[in-house]
């Protein structure tokens, strides 16, 4: 691994001067003023901003079965996602979701580099939104730099106030929306309106509000560079066939400014006109022409910027493009490069991803909206009752996870003459767990003394496909 990938400080750290005897470990941030960028990849990013944010801000407002469609009710430990109601016993599905998310990250990263970072990560998305606000109020790169250098004035102050005001409004709405996934958002809004928010709701709204404002407004690329663990371990999924934002050195060098009219090839120039547009648009403030760097979040802003310059110069596009280390080194065309997408690493990630997704989907589809726990009574293991029968007592914990009340019947099998002596049918209210005592009896003499395996089956009276079978034991003395 080369040192630019691992981020060894040595090459970038300025050599200590004579009077400077130590290098500060904390690099003072130089504020980055990214220039606005338009083009194919910027359009993709905006598309994803719209998509993810419509989902994020919109979902809590959807209604399903006269309740909030997506609600994670931590107090009642019920997790509603449209028609599904998850109970704590269904936590395995959260595990599956996390495994799927992790494997998808591996797969996308192995194939296309830091696609997540560049297009979908909330840090990128909110930075994009906040920068749009900033541009609308303070102007583009040059105007912002001028404004920051300008002496204090009423107009400067006004613009700054306006910008932060809008940022804070967006941030608070984001915090409110987030908490709206855990507390019904309409109630939450009413509580905000009447200033009757609970202490935890207040805390979390402010917490996520401050996090959004701080991360997207102030921290920005520092989150990716210093705080984010994914940024660092994604490089472990890179190889020489991973598509990354790459500057084509063979084509671009030697770089230099030139007149559009001259025959630059005759003068010994490469295609790079050294206009520094790629540096100006970079949200992390790096120069992509230095090769792959750990700061690069793969947003492809430099590709859009460079393509526009190439168009103006009348050169072919793609001096900076999505390419792989192998393709650049060996000067492959795009077909050769794409053929290398189908490599073992990709197949392994894809295979596991498909398997886990399919398993989770099948399991979710076949999920029975009924859970049963069987507890044997420990007081009397086996008791004799009238008619020479032997009785065992159980307690059934029946959980009706649907949002309608249902009648269930219980039956027992596994031993001759085994039967239920207590009530066999009971109604369980909607989304409720109920304890039901159960007495089972067999004829004495039919079976030997000791422990016998039996099956208890609980079935929905109206819908026999909803049934759960549980094993237990029947004791005979």
């Amino acid at each position, binding site marked *: *691994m080369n*040192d630019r990938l*691992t981020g*060894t*400080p*040595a090459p970038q750290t300025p050599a*200590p001067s004579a009077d400077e*005897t*130590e*290098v*500060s*470990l*904390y690099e003072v941030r130089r504020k980055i003023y990214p220039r606005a960028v338009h083009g194919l990849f910027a359009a993709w990013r905006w598309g994803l901003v719209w998509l993810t944010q419509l989902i994020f801000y919109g979902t809590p407002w959807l209604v399903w079965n006269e309740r909030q469609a997506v609600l994670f009710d931590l107090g009642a430990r019920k997790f509603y996602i449209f028609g599904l109601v998850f109970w704590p016993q269904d936590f395995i599905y959260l595990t599956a979701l996390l495994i799927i998310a992790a494997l998808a990250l591996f797969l996308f990263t192995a194939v296309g580099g830091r696609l997540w970072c560049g297009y979908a990560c909330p840090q990128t998305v909110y930075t994009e939104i906040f920068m749009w606000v900033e541009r609308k109020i303070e102007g583009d790169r040059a105007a912002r730099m001028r404004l920051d250098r300008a002496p204090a004035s009423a107009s400067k102050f006004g613009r700054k106030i306006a910008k932060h005001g809008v940022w804070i409004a967006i941030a608070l709405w984001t915090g409110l929306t987030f908490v709206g996934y855990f507390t019904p958002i309409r109630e939450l809004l009413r509580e905000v309106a009447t200033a009757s928010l609970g202490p935890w709701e207040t805390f979390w709204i402010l917490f996520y509000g401050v996090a959004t404002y701080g991360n997207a407004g102030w921290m920005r690329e520092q989150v990716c560079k210093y705080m984010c663990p994914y940024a660092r371990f994604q490089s472990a999924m890179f190889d020489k066939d991973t598509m990354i934002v790459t500057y084509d050195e063979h084509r671009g060098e030697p770089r230099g400014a030139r007149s559009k009219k001259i025959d630059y090839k005759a003068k010994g120039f490469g295609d790079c006109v050294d206009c520094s547009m790629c540096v100006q648009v970079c949200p992390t403030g790096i120069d992509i022409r230095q090769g792959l760097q750990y700061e690069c979040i793969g947003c492809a802003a430099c590709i859009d910027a460079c393509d526009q310059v190439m168009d103006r110069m009348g050169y072919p596009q793609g001096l900076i493009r999505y390419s792989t280390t192998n393709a650049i080194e060996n000067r492959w065309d795009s077909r050769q490069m794409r053929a290398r997408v189908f490599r073992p690493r990709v197949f392994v990630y894809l295979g596991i991803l498909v398997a886990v997704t399919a398993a989770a989907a099948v399991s979710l589809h076949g999920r029975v909206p009924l859970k049963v726990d069987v507890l044997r*009574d*420990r*007081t*009397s293991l086996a*008791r004799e009752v009238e008619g020479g029968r032997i*009785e065992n*007592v*159980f*307690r059934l914990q029946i959980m009706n996870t649907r949002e309608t009340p249902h009648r269930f019947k219980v039956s027992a099998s596994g031993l001759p003459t085994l039967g239920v002596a*207590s009530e066999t049918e009971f109604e369980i209210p909607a989304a409720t767990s109920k*304890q039901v*005592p*159960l*007495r089972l009896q067999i004829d004495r003499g039919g079976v030997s003394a000791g422990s016998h395996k039996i099956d208890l089956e609980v079935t929905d009276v109206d819908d026999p496909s909803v049934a759960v079978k549980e094993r237990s034991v029947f004791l005979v003395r």
Partner: protein
Amino acid sequence: MAEFTSSFWGVYIAVITVVSIIACAVFLKVQTTARVAGKVETTGHTWDEDLAEWNNPLPNWWRWLFYITIVFSLVYLALYPGLAVWGGALNWTSSGQYAQERARAEAAVQPLYDRFGKEPLVQLAGNAEARAIGQNLFLTYCAQCHSSDARGGVGFPNLTDPDWLYGGDPEMIEQTILNGRAGVMPPFGPALGGEGAKDVANYVLSLSGLASDSIRAQKGKELFAANCVACHGPDGKGNPAIGAPNLTDKTWLYSSSEATIIETVTKGRNNQMPAFKERLGAERVHILAAYIWGLSHPEATKAAAK
């Protein structure tokens, strides 16, 4: 417990804690103010071919975080009982917090209990909502001994039949739960001897019409009249005032086998039903008593429900 503890360990812990925190602060101060002259070197270790580490002082943000942590710990120890010798300025205790949360929860359900508490037990037994609460209470507090189905077990009375040791009025059941019961049958082994106990056992079997040795039963009858009638009555029908069981019915708390009856007669029995007044409170017991009375009066609960 006081004789097992002394203030020494509290002081010991407090001194170690405070000295450690102050030492951290002093150490941090000393280590971050001294400057080493000359060029910054690396620590000399190299990993993965080219990864080296500068031997620099702590970055400021880290240093200040450390100081903030120290201040936080001191404030925390002043407010909360972190040092064994100091209970904290806020007087916070975990049991205090529990009591507080419990009081809040109790206050939330109090209106319900107030309403049920006014209803007579027989009427309450027909209230479906009260029965559901009663069943929950029963399964939580009573089922360990009396079984989930309330039919008891060896030594634990069946609560669903019409046979009651202390009488089956709902008010009596409530008293039993509130104050508990101690059912004591004294041992008669020394007084009767082995043969005598067997004779009495056969007489007891004959009382409820079970197979018995009639000669032994005849002998046992005299012994019974001399030893047992004080509690079980001359006809063996028992006495609910002291919880002496009726020996003429088909209900057996232990077993109807001859061997078990001999064991009971010889060694006596000591049965304990704990009092639940303190644990559950009178309001919950009221609901529980109605539920339990309803178990043996299914028609009454149905009638009341209408």
